[in-house]
C-alpha cells in the first residue's frame, strides 16, 4: 500500500504545527521522519491517523483520497500507529487492550458478549508469528515498557495494518532492545508492511531507514539518503550547523561530601525499587546515573530529597543525615533539585514566574515578612533571574504554564541554582528541549560543577550522560550495576548499553567487543562520531 500526503497543514491557534507537508511512503519501505522537538512530527502522524483534522491538504492511499473522521477510519484503511506516549489502558489485560475497539464477540447478535478466549488466541498467534513473546493475560500496568511497546505493535498487527507508524519507539529502550525492535521491523517490512519511523537519533536512522525526510518548524526541509553524513542531517534538522557535544574542562574533583550507603526504597506495594545502592559524589564532579526508565533512578533522587516514604539506609551530606528529613529540611540543607517532569513536579502552571521562582524559598527573608509575602522582593528576584537565565517571557507576572518547555526548564533551573548549594540533583534536565536550550542547560550544569558543587544527573539519554558525566553509575532493577569513569572504555556506548540491561561491567566489555551493536555499527560505518543531542 502506498501512502501519500499532499499539502497537509495543521494549526493550533496561531501556531502552525504542520505547514503544507508533502510526503510519500512506498510499500514495504522504512521511511524515517527526522526533526527536532516540536518540529511537528507527532502532529503530522496524528493527522494521518485521523486523530487531528488537518486544516488543509489531503491523504491518498494508493492514489485514492482518504477521508478520515477518526482513528477508526484510518485503521480501516490499514494505518496503524504506535504512539509516543503509549495508548494502553493500564488496568486492562494485554488481550483486552489489543482487541479494544475491534472486539470479537460471541453469543446472540446485538448483545455483543466479548469473546475473550478468541482474543487471547489471536494475541498468542500473532505474538508467536513475530516472536514478540507477550502474555495475553498479563495486566499492562505490570509490564515493562519494552513489552508494552510490543503490545502496541500487536494492536496494529491485529488490525492488519499495511502502514505502521512508530513515533519515537526507541526513546524508552536500551540499545539492545532497540536491536530487537529493529529485527521486528525487518520482519514486518519483509511481509510487505511499510513503516514510518520517527526519531531524533541519527544512528538509528542510518541502521534501518530506506528513506529519510527531515521536518523543521512544520515544513519538509529536505530528504536524504541513509548514507548521508550525520553532520549534514543534523544541520538539516536544526537549520544551522550544530556544535556536537559540550565543551568542558576536566573536573577539579574535591573531597567526597555525598555518601549514599545501602539505600533501599520500597514502593507502596513493598517492592524494593531501589535495592541497596551505594554512591559517592565528590565536590566538583558530575556523577550521572544511566539506565532505562523505571529502574529506580527516579526513586533514588526522590529518596534523597525526602519525597519517598519507605526509605532505609543512609544518605550523608557532609555531616547531615538526610534519611528521615522532610523535603523542606533537605532543601534547606542545601540540596537543589530539578525533577524529571517539570510541568508535573517542577512548576505550578497557574502561578506566575515570580511565584514559581520562590516556591521553595518563600518562607524566609527576603521573601517573607512575618506571615506575609513580600511582593516587591518577589518581583526583584524574578527580574534578576529572568535576566540571568535568559528566560524568554513577556514579564515576571506571566503564568509559568504558558511558557515553552525550554523556558519552563530555565525557570526551574533558575530557582534551584540561585541559592548556595551543597548538592545539585537534576533528573532528565533536557528532556523535550531543543538544541539551543540544551546547550544552555548543559553549560549551566557544568558551571555549577566547576563552582565546586557535587552534581548528580539522572538521564535515560545516553548522549546526555556521555556529554555531562565525569563518572557514570548504571542502574538496573534498583541496583547499581557498576560505576564507570567517563574515559575508561573505547566503546563506552556499547558497554553502557549492555550494563543497562543488567550485564556487569567486565562481562559487558567482553560482549561489546564480540558483538558490537547494530546501530552503533551502522553509525561507525558512516565514519563519524555522532554526539548530536536534540
Amino acid at each position, binding site marked *: 500500500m502506498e501512502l501519500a500526503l499532499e499539502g497537509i497543514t495543521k494549526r493550533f491557534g496561531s501556531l502552525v504545527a504542520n505547514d503544507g507537508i508533502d510526503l510519500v511512503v512506498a510499500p514495504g519501505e522504512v521511511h524515517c521522519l527526522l526533526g527536532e522537538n516540536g518540529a511537528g512530527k507527532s502532529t503530522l502522524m496524528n493527522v494521518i491517523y485521523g486523530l487531528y483534522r488537518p486544516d488543509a491538504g489531503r491523504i491518498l492511499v494508493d492514489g485514492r483520497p482518504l477521508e478520515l473522521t477518526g482513528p477508526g477510519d484510518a485503521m480501516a484503511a490499514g494505518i496503524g500507529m504506535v504512539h509516543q506516549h503509549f495508548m494502553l489502558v493500564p488496568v*486492562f489485560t494485554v488481550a483486552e487492550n489489543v482487541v479494544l*475497539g475491534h472486539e470479537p464477540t460471541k453469543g446472540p447478535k446485538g448483545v455483543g458478549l466479548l469473546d475473550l478466549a478468541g482474543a487471547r488466541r489471536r494475541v498468542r498467534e500473532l505474538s508467536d508469528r513475530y516472536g514478540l513473546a507477550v502474555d495475553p493475560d498479563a495486566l499492562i500496568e505490570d509490564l515493562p515498557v519494552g513489552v508494552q511497546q510490543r503490545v502496541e505493535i500487536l494492536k496494529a498487527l491485529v488490525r492488519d495494518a499495511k502502514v505502521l507508524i512508530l513515533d519515537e519507539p526507541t526513546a524508552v529502550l536500551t540499545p539492545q532492545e532497540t536491536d530487537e525492535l529493529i529485527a521486528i521491523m525487518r520482519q514486518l517490512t519483509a511481509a510487505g508492511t511499510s513503516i514510518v519511523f520517527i526519531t531524533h537519533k541519527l544512528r538509528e536512522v542510518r541502521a534501518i531507514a530506506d528513506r529519510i525526510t527531515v521536518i523543521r518548524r512544520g515544513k519538509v526541509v529536505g530528504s536524504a539518503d541513509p548514507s548521508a553524513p550525520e553532520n549534514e542531517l543534523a544541520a538539516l534538522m536544526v537549520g544551522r550547523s550544530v556544535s556536537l557535544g559540550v565543551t568542558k574542562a576536566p573536573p577539579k574533583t574535591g573531597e567526597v561530601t555525598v555518601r549514599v550507603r545501602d539505600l533501599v526504597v520500597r514502593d507502596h506495594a513493598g*517492592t524494593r525499587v531501589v535495592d541497596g545502592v551505594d554512591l559517592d559524589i565528590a565536590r566538583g564532579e558530575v556523577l550521572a546515573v544511566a539506565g532505562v526508565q523505571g529502574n529506580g533512578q527516579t526513586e533514588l533522587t526522590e529518596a534523597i530529597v525526602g519525597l519517598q516514604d519507605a526509605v532505609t539506609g543512609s544518605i550523608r551530606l557532609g555531616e547531615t543525615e538526610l534519611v528521615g528529613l522532610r523535603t523542606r529540611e533537605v532543601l534547606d540543607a542545601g540540596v537543589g533539585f530539578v525533577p524529571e517532569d517539570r510541568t508535573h513536579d517542577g512548576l505550578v502552571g497557574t502561578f506566575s514566574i515570580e511565584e514559581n521562582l520562590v516556591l521553595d524559598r518563600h518562607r524566609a527573608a527576603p521573601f517573607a515578612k512575618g506571615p506575609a509575602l513580600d511582593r516587591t522582593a518577589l518581583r526583584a528576584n524574578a527580574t534578576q533571574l529572568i535576566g540571568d537565565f535568559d528566560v524568554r517571557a513577556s514579564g515576571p507576572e506571566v503564568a509559568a504554564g504558558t511558557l515553552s518547555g525550554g523556558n519552563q526548564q530555565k525557570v526551574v533551573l533558575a530557582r534551584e541554582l540561585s541559592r548556595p548549594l551543597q548538592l545539585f540533583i537534576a533528573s532528565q534536565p533536557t528532556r523535550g528541549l531543543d538544541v539551543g536550550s540544551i546547550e544552555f542547560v548543559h553549560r549551566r550544569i557544568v558551571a555549577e560543577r566547576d563552582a565546586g558543587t557535587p552534581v548528580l544527573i539522572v538521564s535515560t539519554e545516553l548522549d546526555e550522560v556521555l556529554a555531562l558525566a565525569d563518572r557514570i553509575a548504571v542502574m538496573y532493577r534498583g541496583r547499581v550495576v557498576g560505576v564507570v569513569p567517563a574515559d575508561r572504555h573505547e566503546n563506552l556506548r556499547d558497554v553502557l548499553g549492555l550494563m543497562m540491561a543488567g550485564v556487569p561491567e567486565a562481562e559487558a566489555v567482553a560482549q561489546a567487543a564480540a558483538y558490537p551493536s547494530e546501530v552503533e555499527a551502522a553509525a561507525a560505518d558512516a565514519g563519524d562520531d555522532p554526539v548530536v543531542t536534540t
Partner: protein
Amino acid sequence: MSTSAPAQPTAPAAAAAPVERSSARPVWVMAAFAALALLLFGGFGPAGSSTFALSGGGAAVSLPDLPLPGRPSGWVIGLACVALVVVVELARRAGRPAPRWAVPLFAALWVVGFLVWVVAGQRISLVGLLGGGLVLAVPLVFGALSGVVSERAGVVNIAIEGQLLAGAFLSAVVASATDSAWLGLLAAPLAGALVGLLLAIFAIRYLVDQIIVGVVLNVLVLGLTNYLFSTVLSADRSLNSPPGLGPVAIPLLSNIPVLGPVLFNQSVIVYLMYVAVAVVHVALFRTRWGLRVRAVGEHPRAADTVGINVNRTRFVNVLIAGALAGLGGAMLTLGASLAFGQNMSAGKGYIALAAMIFGRYSPKGALAAALLFGLATNLQDILSSISTPVPSQFLLMAPYLATVLAVAGLVGRVRAPAADGQPYVKQ
C-alpha cells in the same frame, strides 16, 4: 469527583513486581470490632433472649419464632469473631490472602451479635426487617448503579439526587394524569435521563466542572419540583394521586421461608432492580460495550486512538445513568404508592453516591453497600418502636459513620476510574 485524587494510580514503575503486601490496618479494625463484640454483646449482653419472628409478610409456610439467648449468644459470637481475626492475621503474616469468606462472615456474625444485643429481650420480625431494608435500599441501588454507569465512563455523577427526585416527580404526575402506574414507570427514567442530558451537555459539551454541574443540577431539580408542587400540583390534586405498583408475589419463589416474602413478594420495581444490577454487571464486564466504556473511563485518549468515540460514549452513558436513577425515583412514589412530596429524595442520591464508592464502582458492590444502608435504616426504625439500649439518633448515625470508617481505610483505597471527572477534549 474528587475521589479521583486518592485513587490515582501511582506512576506505574516498570520494575514493580505484582506482589501485593496487604496492610495491617484492616486487621486492626477487625480486632477492635471483635473486642467490642466480646465486651458489649458478651460481657454486657442482655439477660433475656431476643426473639426473631421468621414468618410474616404473607409467608405461605409459617415458621416458629427464633429466640436467641442474649448473653450466651454474645459470647459465642464474640469468640467466633476473635477466631476470624486470628485467621486473617495468620494469613497476612504468611503472605497469603485471607480466605475470601473471612471478612464477610465476620461482618455477618457481628451484625447478628449486634441484633441480639440491641433487640435485648424483645421481639422483632426478621422478615419485616429484611424486606423493609430491601425496599429502602431500592432507590439507593438504582442511584448507585447510575453512578457506576456514569463514572465508569469517566463522568462524575453528583446529580443522582436530582435524577431520583425528577424520576419521583414525573412518575407521580404521569401516573396520576394517565391513571396508569405503568406509564408512570415509563416516565421515571425519562425524567432522570433529562437531568442526565443537562449534566452531559454542561459537563461534556461545555466542559463545566462535573462536580459543579452535579451539585447545581440537584438544586435546580429541587427548586423546580418544589415550585411545580406548590403551584400546579396543589391546584389540581388529581395530578398527584398516582396509582401504586403494589407487591406481586412470584409463584413458588415467594413461598421460600423467610427469603421468599423478603425477595419475591415485592413491587415490580424491586424485580427491575434485580435485573438492572445483573444487566449492568454483565454489560460492564462481559460485553464489548462494557470494555469500551471502561476504556473511556480509564484512558480516554487510548480509547480514541482505537476508534471509540469517547464523548459520544460518555454522553450515552450519562443518559443511561440518569434513566437508572430516575427509575429509582419511581420507587419512592409508585413503588410505595405515595403521592409526590417536596424534596422526596431527601438526600438519598448522596447516600447512593457513597454506596457506589463504598461498593468500589461495581454493581455488585453497590448493591451490597446500598442494602447495608437500607437495613441499618430500617433496623433503626424498628428499634425506635420498642425500647432499646441505644438512642435512636446513634442508630441513625451508624451507616454514615460506617461509611466514613470504610472510606478511611477499612475497605482499602478505592480506585476510581483513572479519568473520572476529567473532560476529554479532542483537537
